[in-house]
């Protein structure tokens, strides 16, 4: 386990866990008081985590360019779409 944690993917796992704790903090009335801003932050952090999982666990940077672009586009479109819904509706 120590060898796994000491690797680069271990370091990214720690970043993902830290981001989870940050989301928990923001989502439990300790962080941001304005609800839409807090919701936007939660969505942004969640999709940033998706990006990290794609890049460092799925190893997409070493995959074909179209696959990388498709995954990155999905991440950005979902983030912008969901945050846009918070403010547009």
């Amino acid at each position, binding site marked *: 386990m120590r060898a796994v944690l000491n690797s680069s993917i271990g370091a990214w796992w720690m970043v993902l866990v830290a981001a*989870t704790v940050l989301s928990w903090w923001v989502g439990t009335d300790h962080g941001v008081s304005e609800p839409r801003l807090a919701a936007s932050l939660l969505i942004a952090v969640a999709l940033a985590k998706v990006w990290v999982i794609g890049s460092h666990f799925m190893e997409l940077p070493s995959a074909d360019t179209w696959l990388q672009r498709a995954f990155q586009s999905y991440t950005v479109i979902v983030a912008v779409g969901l945050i846009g819904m*918070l403010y547009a509706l």
Partner: protein
Amino acid sequence: MTATSERIVREPAAERSGIPGEPGLWLFLFADLVVFALMFGVIVHLRNDQPVLFAESQSHLNESLGVLNTVVLLTGSLFVAAAVRDVRARVGRPDRLLLGAVACGVLFVVVKSAEWASTLADGITPSTNDFFGTYFMLTGIHLLHVMIGIGVLLVMLHNVRSRERRLRLVEGGACYWHLVDLLWVVLFPLLYLMPAGSG
């Protein structure tokens, strides 16, 4: 079984592509991602449309168990990513890492089942209101993904323990498991943490 007795089956260069797993698998993965993206939109719409009901219903969910299950799935993904790395480099004990990932998957199912049981014991069901209808449907579909993922991990484990390791099978199975992880990474904050109201 020793490292020297193992053989990694790779596809001929002409058939090889820069895609982890089988190319066809990615069609399925992206179809799943798109369907879940629409479901994420349903949650945000529900939050906008019925903010009071959303906030009141959300207060019945156990955020701590949601955080626990997030860390459990992230840890499973770490084990799977490390196992793929070890299979490719022909080092370490990827079978042990995959067993660790299976344990994470089983723990997720146990925690989620306990959470559901507690919610149902409080008299809350999928027909209680729109929030819980959405909650039970989406977490149920995701739970089904986790259980399929555990089966995929067991197939990977069997292959890794065999003499002829199929790298593409291991990579593809790993990508499916990471998909299960990343879907929860978005579902969890939307259902458990996202505050309602326009502020």
